[in-house]
């Protein structure tokens, strides 16, 4: 059984995306949070900002590293996880749940076809570790 939820898709840059209607919720994967270590700060975009697929929409920081966050689909930011301002470690504790980052109104879902399902992503992570 996969340790990654089946209700969403995964990117090679370790974001997950769960699409419901024309809205998608985006976060980073359990694997990504482990690699990053204790998250101390998450910089998220403003509401209404519009991004292309694959564009950087924010950064996530541990004590000694910064990772850029990439949007797996094109869309407009409709909600950001305000809880992360005071509790950024929610990304560590519940990366697939309370640690979500942003919700976007999807303007083009072309890119979804290129993403992985849970099983494929798990395999991808294993391959990456070997490389």
């Amino acid at each position, binding site marked *: 059984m996969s340790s990654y939820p089946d209700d969403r898709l995964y990117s090679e840059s370790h974001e997950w995306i769960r699409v419901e209607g024309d809205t998608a919720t985006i976060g980073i994967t359990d694997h990504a949070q482990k690699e990053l*270590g*204790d998250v*101390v*700060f998450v910089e998220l975009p403003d509401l209404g900002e519009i991004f292309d697929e694959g564009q950087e929409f924010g950064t996530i*920081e*541990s*004590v*000694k590293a910064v990772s850029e966050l990439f949007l797996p689909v094109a869309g407009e930011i409709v909600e950001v996880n305000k809880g992360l301002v005071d509790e*950024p*470690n929610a990304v560590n504790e519940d990366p697939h749940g309370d640690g979500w980052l942003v919700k976007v109104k999807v303007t083009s879902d072309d890119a979804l076809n290129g993403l992985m399902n849970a099983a494929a992503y798990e395999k991808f992570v294993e391959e990456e570790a070997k490389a």
Partner: protein
Amino acid sequence: MSDHGHLASPAPDASRLDRRRGSSSIFDASRPGRRGVLLPPLDVPGADPEALFGALHRTEVAGEVEASEVDAIRHFTRLSQKNMSIDANLYPLGSCTMKHNPRINEEIARLAGFAEVHPYTPGHLSQGALELIARLEAALIALTGFARITFQPSAGANGELAGCLMIRAAHVKAGAPRKYVLVPDSAHGTNPASAHFAGYEVKELPSTPRGTLDPADLEKKMTDEVAAVMITVPNTLGVFEENILEVTRIVHAKGGYVYLDGANFNAFVGKIRPADMGVDVMHMNLHKTFSTPHGGGGPGAGPVGVGAALVPFLPVPTVEPEGTGFRLDFDHPDSIGRMRTFYGNFGVLVRALTYILSYGQEIGEVAENAVLNANYLRKKLAPFYHLKYDAPSYHEVVFDDKLQAARGVHNIDVAKRLMDYGFHPPTMSFPLIVPGALMIEPTESEPIEELDAFADAMIAIAREAEESPELVTSAPHVTPVGRIDEALLAREASKAGSFAPVLRAPVRRS
């Protein structure tokens, strides 16, 4: 429990003693009515700030400290006792070059004729200061082979920026600024940052399995869009660029400049003149090669040497001979301008010249012994720690935690455990191409028995990592404070109001 080597068990008394000493700040210890300085009497009519400044008058700096001289001296003396230092410990921070800081340097820099001279003192009353700068320039030219040296930059990174700006100015003068600066993936973080602030895009050059530059790869990337290549010799792996002459030839063939990060000049001072290798511009960290004190993080000084092609672009002012003396010269129409106020970190220059004069023509021994000491440690530690790049080491050797990581012990744990043995940890944050790096630079200042003691500690820790890894991962045990939760601190610091100066009400007399 296993044998912990020569380490005593964690001493509870030490922490109690430390609490009595108080880790808190002087703001916490402030007591109303105390004072630490007696000022001269007011010998003119007292001015009335209220009348002079009206609405802009401030009546007090609320929250400022009130302390006696005794309070102040005890506080800062106790603070000092919580620091590790070169004076007391081998401090093998790779790339930072923690060498001995001679005290004659401090004495000379404190002479009233240097320390008490205002930068706007008229030229005829500051000839000694100007002559000192001119003499240091001559000495550094003798050691580098460059045409001129500027002393404007305040520190190494500031020198890098000055160098990048000169390169840019030269390209602009020649027609176009060009677009890119190439930086090896092993470079100090300041290199790409400095190139960026000079308006360049940074492209990375991957290291070969030997840890050096690949001339064939460089040849491909070195186009006429590339303004410069920034290299470090020996690089941050402690490895010498064997193909340096090929590298500089390739860069020059395309009209680019070679910037040398002089952070590791201490590995070859007196043995190689950088200009002879084809280097066009290089900064020198006087606090590394030339022994000026690091002072808990500064001040440094980052003089920059340039070849003839870049001389017109030097920052102003320069010091020029005039008659039998010297003068400040601002008349350089193509200059990149000023890097700062006044003429650089003069006090640091005094210390550096004092050091150079004390070695004189024998300064090459500094490089020889720095390299010898690093190689001795490499030999002793190689059986116990993994060496990702095994090309010959110069002044530093970069191990990593690959062997220990299998037991859950990482470089940070080895570092913290070293503190328990009385040594400062090595550098870990880079080179970025060595994950889990332990970058060790003993410098020429360490005697053989200290090198042995350090090696013994490292070997003991390697054994501990095998036999009782939790002892290592929970270190340090006998430092003034235990391992600090830097993640928690960063989260707290991110919150609003986290840097409020005074967190407690002042202590009042009961």
